[in-house]
C-alpha cells in the first residue's frame, strides 16, 4: 500500500529480569496508514505502552527485535542522532500522566519551544514564541501569553495535558502516539481532552495510535482496533466489525465487561494478566482464564487467522468459546 505510514513486523521487546530476557511485546505485526486512527486496547500489563515506547524507542533498557518502519525507514536500527531528528518531529507522543510529564522547573512556554528549537532551526526566537502562543491557543487554553510564562504546577491536570498535546503536535507529526491520554484525568476533563484530540485529528492529518483501555473511546475515535493480551495481538479488525462481530474470547469478555443498562451484575474476567515472568510462552495465552473451554480447542502455536477481510483472530479457541452463565460462573469461582 502506498498509503502506508508505519509498518511493524515481528516486533519483540524484551526486558531483563535477573539474567533472562522476558518479552513484554511478543511478535507483534501491524500497519498504520496515513490519517488513520488505530486503537490499541487491552488490560493493564498487556504490553500496550511497551509497544508505544518501542515505536518511539523510549525504553532505556530493553532489547528490541524486529522491524518498525516509519515511512520506510527502520527505527529499530536507526542511530541515536538520526532517531532524535525524527522523534518530536515526524513522530510524537502524548503521555499518560500530565502531572509528571512536564519539567517542574521550566516555564511552559520554554518546554513547548524546546521541540521547535530542536527541529525547526529556521524559526527564530520571535518565530518560535509566536508559534508557541499559536499552539497554546490551538489546544484550547485561554490567555496564552500568560500561560507561556507560567510553570506546570500553576496549571490544572487537564491544562497540563493540553500542553503535552501542544508539545506533541508542535512540529506537525505524521505519526502521533497517544498513550492512555485520559487515564489520569477525571471524567469531565477526559471528555474535553478526547474532543480536543478528535478536533486535532481533522487539523493535523496525522496517523494516530490511540492506546486505551476504554472501549468507548475506541468506538468513538478509531478506524481500526487491535486487541492486545499478554504482549500479543489477539484480534485486529475495523472498529465496526470488531464491535459487531467480536471473535476472540478476550475481546468478547472485554466487551462484555462494559456495563450496560439493566445489568444487575458486572461481568468480570476470571483471573489476572499473567506477569512477565510467569507467562506461559507456548499455547493459547488466554486459555488459563477460560478453563471451561476444553484444552483440545486451543492451537498448539496460536497464530492470527484472517476470518474475514482485514479481520484477524488468534487461536482457534474462539469457535468454541461461550460465556458461562452466572450460576456456573459462581460455582467456578468457588471451586
Amino acid at each position: 500500500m502506498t498509503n502506508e505510514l508505519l509498518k511493524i513486523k515481528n516486533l519483540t521487546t524484551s526486558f531483563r529480569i535477573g539474567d533472562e530476557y522476558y518479552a513484554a511485546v511478543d511478535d507483534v505485526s501491524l500497519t498504520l496508514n496515513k490519517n488513520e486512527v488505530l486503537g490499541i486496547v487491552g488490560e493493564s500489563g498487556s504490553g500496550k505502552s511497551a509497544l508505544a515506547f518501542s515505536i518511539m524507542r523510549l525504553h532505556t533498557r530493553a532489547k528490541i527485535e524486529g522491524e518498525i518502519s516509519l515511512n520506510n525507514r527502520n527505527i529499530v536500527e536507526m542511530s541515536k542522532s538520526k532517531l532524535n531528528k525524527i522523534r518530536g518531529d515526524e513522530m510524537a507522543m502524548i503521555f499518560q500522566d500530565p502531572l509528571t510529564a512536564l519539567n517542574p522547573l521550566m516555564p511552559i512556554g520554554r518546554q513547548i519551544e524546546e521541540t521547535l528549537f530542536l527541529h525547526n532551526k529556521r524559526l527564530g526566537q520571535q518565530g518560535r514564541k509566536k508559534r508557541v502562543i499559536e499552539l497554546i491557543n490551538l489546544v484550547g487554553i485561554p490567555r496564552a501569553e500568560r500561560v507561556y510564562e507560567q510553570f506546570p504546577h500553576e496549571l490544572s491536570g487537564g491544562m497540563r495535558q493540553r500542553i503535552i498535546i501542544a508539545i506533541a503536535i508542535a512540529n506537525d507529526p505524521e505519526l502521533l502516539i497517544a498513550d492512555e491520554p485520559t487515564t489520569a484525568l477525571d471524567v469531565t476533563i477526559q471528555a474535553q481532552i478526547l474532543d480536543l484530540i478528535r478536533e486535532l485529528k481533522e487539523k493535523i492529518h496525522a496517523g494516530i495510535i490511540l492506546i486505551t483501555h476504554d472501549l468507548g473511546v475506541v468506538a468513538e475515535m478509531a478506524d481500526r482496533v487491535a486487541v492486545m493480551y499478554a504482549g500479543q495481538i489477539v484480534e485486529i479488525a475495523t472498529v465496526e466489525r470488531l464491535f459487531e462481530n467480536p471473535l476472540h474470547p478476550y475481546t468478547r469478555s472485554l466487551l462484555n465487561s462494559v456495563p450496560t443498562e439493566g445489568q444487575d451484575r458486572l461481568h468480570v474476567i476470571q483471573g489476572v494478566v499473567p506477569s512477565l515472568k510467569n507467562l506461559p510462552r507456548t499455547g493459547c495465552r488466554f486459555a488459563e482464564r477460560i478453563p471451561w473451554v476444553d484444552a483440545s480447542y486451543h492451537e498448539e502455536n496460536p497464530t492470527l487467522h484472517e476470518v474475514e477481510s482485514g479481520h484477524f483472530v488468534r487461536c482457534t479457541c474462539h469457535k468454541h468459546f461461550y460465556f458461562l452463565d452466572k450460576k456456573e460462573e459462581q460455582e467456578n469461582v468457588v471451586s
Partner: protein
Amino acid sequence: MWKFIIRRLLITFPQLVFLSVLVFIMAQMMPGDALTGLIDPTITAEALDLQRERLGLNNPWYIQYADWVSGLVQGDLGQSFRFKMDVTALISERVMNTILLSAVSLIFTYIIAIPLGIVSGRYNDSPLDSVITGYSYLGFATPIFIFALVMLWIFGFQLGWFPTSGSVAPGLESGTMEYYISKLYHALLPGLSIALISVVSTIQYLRSEIVDTKQKDFIVTARAKGASENRVYNKHIFRNSILPIAAFFGWEITSLISGTVFVESVFSYPGMGLLFLESIMQRDFSVVTSLVLLFGAASILGALLSDIILSIVDPRIRIK
C-alpha cells in the same frame, strides 16, 4: 519571588532576637560578673557595690539586656580579658580569615563535587561510579583532623609546597597585592583538606538525585521531543538534581564558619574556630558569648540564604 524573600526576611528578625535572648540568659547564668575576676583583691566590698551600681549590674535583667543589645547593635561586644582588647576588634580580624578559608574550601568542594556527582549519577553502577562511591565511603570514614594532619605532613612538610601555619607570611604590609596573595596561599591547603572530606556528602546527594531524576516522566517527555542525551542531562536532569544541594548551600556555609575548629588548630590558622576553642579553655567569657552569638546568627542567615537560593531555583516554592 520578592514577596517570598521579604516574608522570609521578616521571619529572620524574631529568630535573631530570640537568639540574643538565649545567649544573654546563658551569659547571665555563668558564675560571677565583670567585677569578680578582673579586680584588685584589696578593694572593699562597698566600693565594688558602688561600681556595680555605676556599671548597671544591679539593674533588673531586662534593662541589662537592653544595655547589652544596644551595645551589640553599635558593634560593642565588650572586652576580652585575655587579650585586653575590644572583642569586636579581636573577632573582626579572625572573621575575615575564617570567611576566606570557608570560601576557599567551598569553591574546592563544588569544583570537585559537581563533576564527580554528575558522572557518578549519569553512569551509575559503572566502574567509574564504583570508584567515586568508594572514595565517598573513604571520605565518610576519615576523621577530618587526621586527614588534615596527613595533608599538612605531605604537602606542608615533606614537599614544602604550602605554608604550614598562620594566615599570612610575616612582614607583609596589609593592603598590598602580595599580602592578599599570601593570605590566599595560606588558606589553600587547609581549604583543600576540608573540601576533600566534605565533598563526599555533596557527591552522594547529587548522585542519588540524578539517579532519581533520570527516571522521571518529564525526562521521557524530553527524549520524545528529540533532545539528545547531553541536552537531556544538561537542561532537564541537572537543574532538577541540584535542588537539595542549593538547599544545602546555606547550611554548608554555617557549618564551615563554625566547624573549621579542627582544621584551624591543625594548621594553626588564626580563624574563629581556633579563637573559640582557646577562649573556652581560658574562660574568656565575653569572647565565647560573642562567638556563640555570631555562630548562631550565621546559622540563621545561612538558613535564610538557603531558602532564598531555593526560591530562585525552584518556582514551586515562591507561591506558598
